[in-house]
């Protein structure tokens, strides 16, 4: 029996042997792991737990997973979850992106796709109502993200029109694709979609590149899977939208108001590689973007009333033709203030460049900012880089971003991501790794989102990143704020947007989940059993990577304990004692021991008994 909201099948694709199979999962597995991040973690556990420690994220045997969830497309704000063993954290990240691809793949009859192996030649996967097929992609390999999308839209539409000439006009397909950064296996590269959206955290663009997959494309004319209680779902759908229409700040500005606000207001915005978190630059105010670059003020993904996206375009000057979204706050910060860039035009340009190159707009420029601080401190020199790398120098960052994407010169080292680059630069310079790691803003290798903890005025606090199984991922922090553990994990499993969860109450969201699936799911059951099950399994795999030392690495970067040097919260910093205390409370809540190792009785309670044998050696 297939529960409501699920298409019922998954695609299992062995690229090495060119074998495509349909597989199914038992009802119990779906109920226990729900979808998206949960299902991806379960699949990884079942398939590669034995190989986990030695397997690199870029090895062919690492499964690359695209997963929808039962709520995808039905609950407002459709997203896809991309996962696998992360080549950045060596654990599991459920990396989500808003895209119609999620809707299209689900309606073709598949809840998700598992790729293993490596294709001998570049290919893309096309899934339609006629079935799945691998299509030669040599002509697309090497193209930037934008051009890839333009060509794919044309090519797939032509294919479908040729096959079904009588049915009328074909709409554009949904697609996920790579830019050059993914192709060249830049470790923290993202999987792109819709020109400016990305599954960024985790580095799954490089995993996709390692398998020679340029794109994954889907188009369906079928309907959504049936839900368990259609009348209830309809009512809840209307209620959810009625709440979302009230989220007026996002509709008006997206998150674009934070480029100014998170600096000037809450002192939690990265400035020059987090050396400061305060600024008072009105030049980066959202009104400047609105007045000069926004060509569309309301743009939404499928079934979303929130409309947090806006389309920016530069029509004159050296960056003529650059198209991206707001840019949203994360990219205002990481492609702006964190590089010492405070003017909207340069910010739109760097954001567009990240999209085109396929760099994650948070993680890629985190590494650029890291390099710039090493330059500021004289550790990296003009000779090492090939040019001067001063804060605010757009041309220099533009050049370095290209070098990273194509792994040229120092770019080859930076393409390993901030954490790994620190070790390589230490080796190059004959320095100790600690001397370089202290400027690396990451947790578990995952470069941290643009929300600081020192002022304690943002939604991120003490252990938000330190305790998270997804490290620096700002969309899935461990606790606190509206993205609390149970919430964020649920949205990633659902799979839908955290921003469409902002407005409707959690009670409404879980009622919706029950109406769709028919599972006896409640906020309480998720918080006490299902959520912890998924996070505990992620924790086990993170431990089994043997890359992160318990407690020592369950911590913020050193910089987050330096006092803020400027602004209204000058002198404030993350409270070390509170971090230690809350870390223990977090472990205790989840039933992990004082070093964060899941206890046997917890594993038994969560039906994760087979995990215990792997945990024994991590316990003291």
């Amino acid at each position, binding site marked *: 029996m297939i529960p409501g909201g699920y298409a019922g099948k998954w695609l299992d694709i062995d690229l090495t042997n060119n074998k495509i199979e349909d597989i199914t999962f038992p009802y119990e597995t779906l109920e226990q792991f729900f979808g998206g991040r949960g299902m991806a973690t379960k699949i990884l556990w079942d398939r590669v737990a034995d190989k986990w420690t030695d397997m690199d994220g870029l090895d062919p045997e690492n499964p690359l997973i695209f997963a929808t969830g039962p709520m995808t*497309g039905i609950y407002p704000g459709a997203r896809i979850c991309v996962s696998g063993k992360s080549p950045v954290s060596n654990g599991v990240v459920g990396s989500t992106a808003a895209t119609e691809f999620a809707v299209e793949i689900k309606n073709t009859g598949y809840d998700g796709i598992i790729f293993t192996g490596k294709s001998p030649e570049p290919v893309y996967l096309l899934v339609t109502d006629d079935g799945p097929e691998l299509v030669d992609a040599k002509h697309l390999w090497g193209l930037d993200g934008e051009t890839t999308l333009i060509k794919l839209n044309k090519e797939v539409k032509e294919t479908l029109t040729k096959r079904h000439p*009588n049915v009328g*006009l074909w709409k*554009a397909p949904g697609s996920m694709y790579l830019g050059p950064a993914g192709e060249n296996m830049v470790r923290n590269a993202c999987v792109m979609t819709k020109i400016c959206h990305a599954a960024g955290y985790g580095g799954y663009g490089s995993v996709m590149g390692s398998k020679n997959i340029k794109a994954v494309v889907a188009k369906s004319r079928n*309907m959504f899977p049936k839900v368990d209680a259609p009348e209830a779902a309809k009512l809840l759908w209307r209620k959810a*939208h009625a709440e979302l229409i009230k989220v007026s700040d996002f509709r008006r500005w997206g998150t674009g108001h934070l480029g100014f606000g998170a600096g000037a207001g809450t002192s939690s915005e990265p400035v020059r590689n987090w050396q400061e978190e305060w600024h008072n630059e009105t030049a980066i105010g959202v009104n400047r973007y609105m007045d000069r670059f926004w060509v569309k003020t309301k743009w939404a993904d499928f079934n979303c009333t929130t409309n947090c996206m806006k389309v920016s*375009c530069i029509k004159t000057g050296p960056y003529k033709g650059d*198209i991206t979204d707001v840019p949203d706050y994360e990219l205002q910060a990481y492609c702006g203030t964190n590089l010492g860039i405070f003017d909207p035009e340069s910010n739109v340009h760097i954001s567009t460049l990240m999209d085109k190159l396929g760099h994650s707009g948070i993680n890629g420029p985190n590494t650029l900012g890291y390099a710039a601080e090493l330059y500021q401190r004289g550790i990296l020199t003009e000779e090492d880089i090939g040019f001067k790398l001063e804060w605010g120098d757009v041309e220099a960052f533009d050049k370095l971003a290209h070098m990273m994407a194509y792994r040229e010169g120092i770019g080859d080292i930076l393409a390993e991501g901030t954490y790994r680059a620190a070790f390589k630069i230490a080796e190059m310079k004959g320095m100790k790794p600690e001397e370089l790691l202290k400027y690396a803003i990451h947790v578990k290798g995952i470069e941290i989102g643009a929300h600081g903890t020192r002022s304690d005025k943002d939604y991120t606090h003490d252990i938000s990143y330190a305790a998270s199984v997804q490290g620096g991922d700002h969309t899935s922090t461990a606790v606190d704020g509206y993205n609390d553990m149970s919430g964020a994990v649920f949205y990633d499993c659902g799979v839908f947007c955290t921003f469409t969860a902002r407005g409707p109450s959690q009670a409404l969201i879980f009622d919706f989940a029950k109406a769709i699936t028919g599972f006896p799911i409640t906020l309480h059951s998720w918080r006490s059993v299902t959520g912890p099950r998924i996070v505990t399994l992620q924790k086990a795999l993170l431990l089994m990577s043997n890359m992160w030392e318990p407690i020592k690495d369950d911590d913020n970067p050193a910089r987050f304990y330096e006092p803020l040097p400027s602004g209204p919260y000058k002198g404030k910093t993350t409270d070390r004692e509170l971090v230690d205390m809350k870390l223990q409370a977090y472990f205790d809540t989840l039933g992990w021991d004082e070093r964060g190792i899941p206890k046997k009785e917890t594993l038994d309670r969560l039906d994760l008994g087979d995990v215990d044998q792997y945990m024994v050696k991590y316990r003291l």
Partner: protein
Amino acid sequence: MWPEASRVRVFMPFPGVEVPHLCAQCQDYPCIEACPVDALSSDPDTGAVIVDREKCISCGACIKACPGSVPYLHPGDNKATICDLCGGEPKCVEVCTEAGYNALTIVNEGPSIHRKLYSRDPVETAKDLAVKMFGEKGEEVIE
């Protein structure tokens, strides 16, 4: 939900460039003219094109005759599908109001030769919109 069964179709050949696509009720109704089995007629009250699903033979002649290729074959029964204005009480207007957008309202206007101008291939419309949005770059984003 069944996005591809909606009589109001939204095309997005490039991200951000969205074109709603539906019947504009041409004064001369080329689709009705083209139907070989007289399955199409116009509603005398609303002007909407009505499809007799029993008679329709799924030949696609109406799609070819339409200046905007508006009709499509329904993914369920494979019959020609055209916006019927919900008999004069369009659901799209209702839901838009309920959702709080208030972007759609009912406008009562008689037949006009200009209606036909709005029956246009959505990708062609999108190409024009792209130029309006992106300037010269707009020429390149939709192939």
